[in-house]
């Protein structure tokens, strides 16, 4: 027997068959063009339209107002050990981060933004209630946090760890991690030593959450580079991941259990969290309705991890739930109930570069049934290709009752005409002994790597499709976007957008929504639960819809949204009820709700 296909015998085949196979072949060659022609991306508007047209067509538009609001922040990237000089743009490509906090409890969201060069300062923009902001980081004592020998900032998450009513700050760093206690909104005091934090962590993600339901916020920190490395004083150049897809030589993970009185105990090994993957993003939410927040980690250079929490221990279930099968370059973790069915979907950003690497972003949607299984529906719903993607957030930007998706992207924007992609792909395919040593990587020499990318703002049509309207509604920047947050900055009942760009300006997109759509917002305060109410799930029922959201202590990429929860309601909504599941387990139902109001809800004691 032979495997060879007998040579076709043209003499025995008719002309008709040859014509048919030629047409068949031609049709196959034309198929990619047809797919591209009719893809959602091809039909996305590529030009900005006037605001009235955007309002009529999409129900909202965005206007960049950072400078007009008194915010002129430009991020400064880090500069690491000169042993890495050849690939410095790559190894210093993160650090621009933004988070929302009402640090002084005046009812208006403030903005904290990180800087990453040694000696640079972080900014805390206090909301002046009149459309403007004032940087008060210096006087509050949380500006000068990137001093030589202590590392630099990579992000910030806020949570009231001592339940005094004021949100405290955990500063995510490549370097000495910092915990700052909020002194009643009048300033911050270092609480790092008292908390017992380790001397050095090279992290890009952290999450406040009460994993054991004891009413005190615990803290998860996900290491990226190994914690043994002082990136400014490296012993050698073997600092890169051992693999582009299967790396396990990253930083360790920490879970700091809150013992009270400002003390924490590191318990990750004790509770079953043991990973040295390269974590870039994490978020926690009660994904199964057990009353215990589960922990999702998006890892660079590998699979994502999902730690299921029984209140005392975690069990890694990425493989069995489907989200931990295909290794990609996870850079975001966001939860959103995009189908309005009372379940959290998970959005993970990855890398897609036309003609080189098409990982595609993941939108993990839970299957029906009792066991937790996810399907990736990113392609089906049109939110798969986002370039070199970073932070993303779900939020109802046009108040139509469906969660939309905002995505930051763009990796390294240097010389527009010269790309580093070839060299990147050349080395990334190699054995660990090659990829793992920075000295083997070709020099960047000013080239770009997936730079100057247009952002994506996918509008959820409520019928199972997302349409990219970024350009049309005014999102035209092409900076190297990293972290993005959504917040009702001026208490108008709409979600504004704040974006932090690597080596670029902080952008504030002020949202204007057509007046015929309603909304409702909730600000929660725990009593038996942690006072920040982080981990509370809110399920709003209106009309025939229900939508679940959670109060988050850190999500997206190195960011944290406003903890006030915003629901768009569409036109003339018939509000039924809100069901709050507090972290303490208490279930509270609110009836007789009225749209277009912010409700302050205190947990019944």
């Amino acid at each position, binding site marked *: 027997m032979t495997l060879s296909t007998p040579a076709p015998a043209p003499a025995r085949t008719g002309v008709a068959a040859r014509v048919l196979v030629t047409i068949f072949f031609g049709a*196959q060659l034309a198929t990619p063009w047809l797919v591209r022609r009719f893809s959602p991306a091809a039909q996305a508007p590529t030009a900005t339209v006037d605001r009235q047209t955007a309002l009529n067509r999409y129900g909202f538009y965005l206007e960049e107002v950072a400078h007009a609001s008194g915010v002129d922040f430009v991020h400064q990237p880090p500069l690491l050990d000169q042993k890495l000089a050849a690939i410095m743009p790559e190894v210093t490509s993160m650090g621009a981060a933004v988070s929302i906090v009402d640090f002084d409890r005046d009812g208006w969201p403030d903005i904290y933004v990180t800087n990453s060069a040694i000696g640079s300062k972080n900014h805390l923009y206090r909301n002046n209630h009149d459309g403007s902001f004032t940087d008060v980081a210096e006087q509050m004592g949380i500006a000068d946090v990137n001093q030589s020998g202590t590392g630099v900032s990579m992000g910030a998450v806020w949570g009231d760890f001592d339940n005094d009513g004021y949100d405290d700050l955990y500063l995510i760093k490549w370097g000495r991690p910092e915990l700052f206690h909020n002194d009643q909104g009048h300033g911050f005091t270092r609480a790092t030593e008292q908390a017992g934090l380790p001397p050095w962590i090279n992290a890009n993600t952290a999450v406040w959450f009460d994993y054991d339901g004891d009413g005190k916020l615990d803290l998860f920190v996900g290491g990226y580079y190994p914690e043994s490395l002082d990136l400014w004083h490296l012993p050698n150049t073997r600092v890169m991941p051992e693999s582009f897809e299967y790396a396990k030589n990253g930083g360790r993970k920490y879970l700091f259990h809150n013992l009270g009185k400002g003390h924490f105990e590191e318990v990750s090994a004790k509770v079953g969290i043991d990973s040295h993957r390269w974590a870039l993003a994490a978020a926690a939410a009660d994904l199964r309705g057990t009353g215990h927040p589960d922990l999702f980690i998006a890892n660079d250079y590998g699979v994502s991890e999902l730690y299921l929490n029984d209140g005392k221990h975690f069990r890694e279930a990425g493989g069995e739930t489907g989200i931990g099968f295909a290794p990609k370059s996870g850079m975001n973790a966001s939860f959103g109930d995009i189908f309005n069915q009372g379940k959290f979907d998970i959005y993970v950003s990855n890398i897609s570069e036309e003609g080189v690497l098409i990982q595609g972003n993941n939108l993990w949607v839970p299957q029906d049934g009792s066991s937790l299984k996810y399907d990736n529906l990113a392609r089906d719903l049109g939110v798969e290709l986002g370039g070199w993607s970073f932070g993303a957030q779900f939020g109802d930007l046009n108040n139509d009752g469906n969660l939309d998706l905002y995505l930051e992207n763009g990796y390294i924007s240097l010389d527009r005409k010269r790309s580093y992609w070839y060299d990147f792909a050349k080395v990334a395919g190699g054995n660990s002994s090659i990829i793992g040593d920075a000295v083997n990587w070709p020099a960047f020499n000013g080239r770009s790597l997936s730079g100057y990318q247009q952002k994506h703002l996918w509008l959820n049509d409520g019928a199972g499709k997302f349409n990219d309207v970024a350009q049309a509604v005014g999102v035209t920047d092409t900076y190297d976007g990293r972290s993005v947050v959504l917040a009702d900055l001026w208490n108008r009942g709409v979600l504004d957008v704040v974006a932090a760009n690597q080596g670029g300006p902080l952008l504030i997109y002020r949202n204007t929504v057509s007046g015929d759509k309603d909304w409702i917002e909730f600000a929660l305060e725990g009593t038996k639960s942690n006072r920040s109410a982080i981990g509370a799930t809110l399920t709003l029922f209106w009309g025939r819809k229900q939508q679940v959201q959670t109060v988050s202590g850190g999500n997206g990429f190195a960011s944290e949204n406003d903890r006030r929860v915003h629901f768009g309601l569409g036109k003339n909504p018939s509000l039924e009820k809100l069901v709050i599941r507090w972290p303490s387990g208490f279930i509270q139902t609110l009836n007789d709700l009225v749209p277009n109001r912010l409700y302050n809800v205190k947990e019944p004691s």
Partner: protein
Amino acid sequence: MNPQPAMAHEPVTPTSGTPLSPSFGNRMFAALGSPFVPPIFITLILLVGNLSYGILESYWKTLLAIATSVLAEMMLGRIFLRKWPHPASAYITGISVGILLRSPAFWPYALCSLLSITSKYALRFRGRHIWNPSNFGICAMLFLAAQSVASLSIQWGNNFGSLAVIWVLGSVILWRARRFHISLTYVASFIALSFLRSWVTGDPWQSEISPITGPMYQLFIFFMITDPKTTVRSRTGQCIVAFSIAFAELLLRLDSCVFAPLYALFWVGPAALFIEMFIDSRRARNAVPSAFANPQIVRS
């Protein structure tokens, strides 16, 4: 990928001419020349890669590629040959597409398999198909559907062990099939030219060697460039073609082409066949007088 894998195409004969003893070792050695070895070998690559590192986007995509490939071969074979072709070569094409193509979508896997198989029937010259089918299919997808696909350009893992098993096993099989010289020439040329590239670009030589330690090259070296249907016949010619592929790859790499080896084979493979056919036709014309004396030559 390879409709007629080198290892299976030719009759299994001991290369040394020495009769095989009936020992277990020799029986195993002889078995390596079995026509079933190529599909088993590529399945082994798939299983080692996926069980060790989860290389596949999903089993379903690979199964789709295999099923499409086999079905297309059956249908087109039935139409053109009026009999059912053996499915093994189509299986190899499908499984290769399943490994080498990377896309979050399903349709590229089906289309790539379809293009690969159909190219054998649609793109013919003097009775021969001139492109390695899976090389054609994957290159066509990279040219035409760059927004949806990429090829496997990243590593499977860090373990030299699994890599070594595949290299050793593949080399033994190729040697038994008397095709090892093709791969050896290519690998030697690639390594030598890597140092040349390093000298030209100033990049570390390790970065130039790096690609050949990745999984794409295992399939490329063991299955694509050794394809007997789309390589020239003479041993010397095969070595020249293998070097030419490496050289074309050098030029493409100097132009920063990410999928340089695939594109190099795409251009060099058919060119080599055309040259061989041209030389054959010249020889046939020159041999006409003797053909009258021996009509069998004309018929062969």
